[in-house]
């Protein structure tokens, strides 16, 4: 039953991935302008352009080009940049860890903020302190990530001079510098997401506290906080895991912006740079990578549900 369930979800995952690849490829293909002409500039002759088109494979039909690209993706050879004429695969491979570290650190910040904040907001929802925290979290929800980044830089880098305002160092080269440079972007991304997730945590815990089984636990002799910990948190986790996954997707997209603000050489800055240069091959690959990441997150969440909630193990 469980295996069948997982197989079904994996099948849906692969189908969705294929469908999105068609959409991504189609969007890039219908964009006006010839990549070869863009790459060669205004003074190129028609024969130069034709030569380059052949080199890029642009003279082939759309289905052929799509299948070529797909074959490249599956064999991890996702083509060559129109602009730099270098292989895209290694470029992406060096940037993935950077973005993963940034997103991971931001997620940790977000969770570290959201779970205690949300729990306190729920337990004190009738008191002034809880309402004040709710109002504060609303501010966090409203502030866009890039603005939070700029504000943090203004305060901690420019005014106080405690932390570097931008840049990226590999942790192998200089771990302290790496850590110091990571703090502000991770806070910028994590605090905003944490505020959003905290509101999910709050409503989820409030809902759980009203459940009959919490009353049963208290009738057994559990004190309110114990009842919440022993009986509430696991039940509150299902909606929170959903929220975490949704927010992980936003973190990934937020990273695209924040990498630009903090000059971090990750996937996001590769995407924004390539868009600026009209390097459609790279854009296409990076967008596909982001789509795949989002789908993988959703697949993992589906599996997590089944682990958290025993009732879903029986339901197909």
């Amino acid at each position: 039953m469980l295996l069948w369930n997982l197989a079904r979800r994996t099948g849906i995952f692969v189908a969705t991935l294929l469908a999105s690849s068609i959409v991504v490829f189609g969007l890039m293909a219908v964009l006006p302008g010839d990549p070869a002409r863009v790459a060669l500039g205004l003074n190129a002759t028609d024969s130069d352009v034709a030569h380059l088109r052949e080199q890029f494979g642009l003279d082939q039909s759309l289905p052929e080009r799509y299948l070529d690209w797909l074959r490249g993706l599956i064999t991890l050879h996702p083509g060559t940049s129109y602009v730099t004429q270098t292989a895209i695969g290694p470029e992406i491979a060096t940037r993935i860890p950077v973005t993963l570290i940034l997103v991971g650190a931001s997620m940790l910040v977000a969770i570290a903020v959201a779970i205690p904040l949300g729990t306190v907001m729920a337990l004190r929802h009738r008191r002034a302190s809880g309402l004040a925290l709710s109002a504060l979290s609303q501010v966090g929800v409203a502030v866009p990530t890039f603005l939070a980044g700029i504000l943090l830089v203004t305060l901690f880098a420019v005014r106080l001079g405690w932390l570097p305002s931008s840049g990226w160092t590999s942790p192998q080269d200089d771990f302290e510098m790496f850590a110091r440079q990571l703090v502000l972007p991770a806070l910028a991304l994590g605090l905003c997401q944490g505020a959003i997730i905290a509101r999910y945590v709050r409503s989820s815990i409030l809902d759980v506290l009203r459940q009959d089984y919490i009353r049963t636990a208290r009738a057994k002799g559990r004190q309110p906080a114990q009842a919440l910990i022993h009986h509430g948190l696991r039940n509150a986790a299902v909606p929170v895991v959903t929220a975490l996954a949704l927010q992980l997707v936003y973190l990934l997209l937020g990273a695209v912006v924040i990498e630009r603000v903090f000059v971090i050489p990750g996937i996001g800055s590769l995407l924004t740079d390539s868009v600026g240069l009209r390097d459609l091959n790279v854009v296409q690959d990076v967008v596909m990578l982001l789509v795949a990441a989002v789908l993988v997150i959703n697949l993992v969440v589906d599996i997590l549900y089944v682990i958290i909630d025993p009732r879903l193990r029986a339901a197909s």
Partner: protein
Amino acid sequence: MKLPTTSRADSVEKAMPDTSGDSSEPEHQSRREVLNVRDLSVRTDSGLQLLDNVSFTLGEGERVGLIGESGSGKSLTALSIMALLPDGVQAGGSVQLRRPGRGDDVAKEMVGGRERELSQVRGKDVAMVFQEPMTALNPTMRVGKQVSESMLIHGTRPDRRSAYAAAVALLDAVGIPNPAEAARAYPHHFSGGQRQRIVLALALANDPALLVCDEPTTALDVTVQARVVNLILRGVQERNSALLFVTHDLALVASICERVIVMYGGRIVETGPVRDVFTRPQHRYTQGLVGASDVRKTDERGRLTTIPGTVPPAGRFPDGCVFRNRCSHATASCSQTPEWTPTGDGKGHACFHPVGEGHPTAERGA
């Protein structure tokens, strides 16, 4: 004793316990006291009075039914005893619990107590079976763990392993098939009746001096009601636990309880031994309840007897006698709150125009 399998029995009298065997009615006053509720009141933060001047006691091993229509304050009384009232309502007065002959026999006050101390009483001296078995258990915890939990909280078993073994034995005692396997299952694997038996098992785990059951069979199919009621009865008798059984099923009260408390409008309107109250009700409300529970009795148009009118919303009962806007015998004097009239033998009522006075038999209806 035989239990009725329908909620509306042919007649209350038919379901009466035969008091020849363990007739314990006269001696209930000499029993050691387990529960003493004195002048219990519950009001909302906005000032609505939900319970008013509720006072009664329960002796060791005594089985008492708490009856009345929905909205009469039965469940609030039960929750007040557990000190588990919902947010937004406050209790006043006094609820004292003790466990005679079970170690630390000191009275514990449940109204206004500190959470830390209350939680040491709940689940140990007093336990509760709730109305809704489908939601009373944690859906993400194995039932064996949920049953053993209350023993571990109160340290009544030395360790996790023995508490778990005791939980399996309890599941067996309430008739869960394959108890060892069942202990590893989750609540959604069980039917409503089985879940209610699991809730009963965890309520009985620490041999409470008092078991409070809040309409434990209302949400169940009639076919499984009798089974659950029998298990409750056996559970309290084996442990000599007192039972407060909240229900609106008079036949059920008649079959399992010795004494009955009739509530209406957040007050106790009548109390006494089951046989006396159900055969010779004094209060006009009790008379209505007993009349409405008799499905053989119909009016001239062939309809079942009912109490006219409906229960007012919480806290909106008339002043004076709370029943006077639905009572055919109400007079001007009923705008005063009727005094509690003890009539001996643990009986009493609060009514200006009791049934018995003047024309005792004529009032009982044909």
